[in-house]
């Protein structure tokens, strides 16, 4: 039973990681590419880390929870680095796709 959950988590994680990178390669401009890795990869790696915690808790004596630490760290840092990259890209005026909607002027 636990093995099935493990297998599902690992496959799901690897799939989302791949989707993040596909987004990175195929989307047309920088701001759109930003969406792939920051979300898909974070959840993908999160799922793999939870699978790892499960696996080591099952095999060794006692629970193994230190993988949670990396998951937590990634979930806190991913939005921060996405925000900074977007800010830097706006600052150096990276090209946008023509159909990009512009913000209403305040």
């Amino acid at each position, binding site marked *: 039973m636990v093995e099935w959950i493990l297998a599902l988590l690992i496959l799901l994680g690897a799939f989302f990681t791949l989707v993040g990178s596909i987004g990175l390669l195929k*989307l047309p401009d920088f*701001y*759109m590419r*930003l*969406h792939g890795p*920051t*979300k*898909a990869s974070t959840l993908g790696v999160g799922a793999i880390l939870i699978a790892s915690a499960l696996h080591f808790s099952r095999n060794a004596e006692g629970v193994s929870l230190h993988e949670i630490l990396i998951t937590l760290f990634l979930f806190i840092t991913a*939005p921060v680095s996405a925000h900074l990259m977007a800010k830097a890209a706006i600052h150096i005026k990276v090209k946008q796709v023509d159909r990009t909607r512009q913000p209403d002027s305040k």
Partner: protein
Amino acid sequence: MAVRRIFPHPLLSFVLWIIWLLLNNTMAMGHVVLGGLLAVIIPWTTSSFWPEKTVLKHPWLLIKYIFVVLYEIMVANIVVTKLILGRSSKLNPGFFHYELQLESPVGIGLLANTISLTPGTVSCDLSEDKRSLLIHSLHIDDVAAIKADIHRKFERPLKDIFVSC
């Protein structure tokens, strides 16, 4: 106020203690004590870095908020996966301003982080006067609907958590 002197930031102490135990991946007595010592010393020596006190009025609301965000991340990932694997010429990306009602800096920070983690939106910039966030969205059907969603799901709970302090 003696307790306040020893624990200038009780929540920070608690989090440090938990992180120490997780890092060592053990509940051995020695590490429990050593982690406890560090959890007292570190906030005490660095208390001058954190002049403003953030008061958590409703900790249980924060825990509920974390679960809501986790659920939203799952849903968001499925939506974004569909968008990424679909035809990218059909996507309508765009920027919009989101007018903030939150005032506490921690609240704004948490909201920006949440927005970056969920449905195809990334927060890009905070205006000078801290009144509006510039947000980029992967696919926009209706700007008003996205804004209403953000307000209903994230901003209102955060306003309840960080009551003006």
